[in-house]
């Protein structure tokens, strides 16, 4: 049980930290002019030159490896929903690190998602 909680903590902190760094990098990169192959490739090229993107990648790789290990221990219908506690951690990060405005409706939605996740994880 302890090993599952430990791997889950690494998964959540790694993915949330990585995604926040990547979001910061993507916002600095700016959106692609059009959603067409050439524009998307140019967009990815710009993103790859952003330091925040490369700060996020190792954190996400760490969380990916934790996911692989967890999936070898537990069923997918438990692992993936349980990892969704990252919604609260991520929303707090979005508010305090990225400066996003979290409206009451958005918080209510996030908390409902978490309540649902707790039920799903409990089986």
């Amino acid at each position, binding site marked *: 049980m302890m*090993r599952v909680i430990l791997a889950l903590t690494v998964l959540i902190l790694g993915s949330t930290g990585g*995604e926040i760094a*990547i*979001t910061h990098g*993507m*916002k*600095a*990169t*700016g*959106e*692609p002019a059009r*959603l067409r192959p050439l524009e*998307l490739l140019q*967009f*990815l090229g710009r*993103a790859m030159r952003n330091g925040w993107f490369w700060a996020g990648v190792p954190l996400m790789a760490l969380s*990916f490896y934790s*996911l*692989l*290990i967890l*999936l*070898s*221990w537990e*069923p*997918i*219908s438990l692992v*993936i*929903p349980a990892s*969704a506690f*990252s*919604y609260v951690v*991520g*929303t707090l*990060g*979005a*508010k305090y690190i*990225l*400066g*996003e*405005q*979290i*409206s009451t*409706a*958005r918080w*209510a*939605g*996030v*908390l*409902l*998602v*978490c*309540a*649902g*996740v*707790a*039920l*799903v*994880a*409990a*089986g």
Partner: protein
Amino acid sequence: MASERRLRIKTLVMVLAMVVCANAGDLLLKRGMSQIGAVRLTPSGLAQAFRLTVASGTIWIAIFFLTGFMLSYMTVLSWADYSYVMPAGAFGYALLTLLAVVFLHESVSPRRWFGVVLICVGVLLVGQTKPRTTAVAGEVVA
């Protein structure tokens, strides 16, 4: 407002791409890791697990889908809030639960189904909010 509507539509399309790729990837990962067996948390156990995952075709297909997820995720995050995209992507749980039942033959209790319903309602609530509340490079939020 036309630009607001366009923003919502393109965000929805990218979130859908994210969900399909993430679910297909996770499902294939589970299948691949089940073929490999439980990972032992020792240096030799981890090294062996690494060798086996790199040699698994199923794991590589899973990585292909997860790369598709990552690309659509990066693209949508260039214009939309992280706190919008992240919970909006959760509607994939309904799809994931269905896929786990159909393909992996996992049993799902009524309580778990109720949890899935709550998640979907939560996602709908988040979906009502503005997709973007911060400035994007070279642009100012109206």
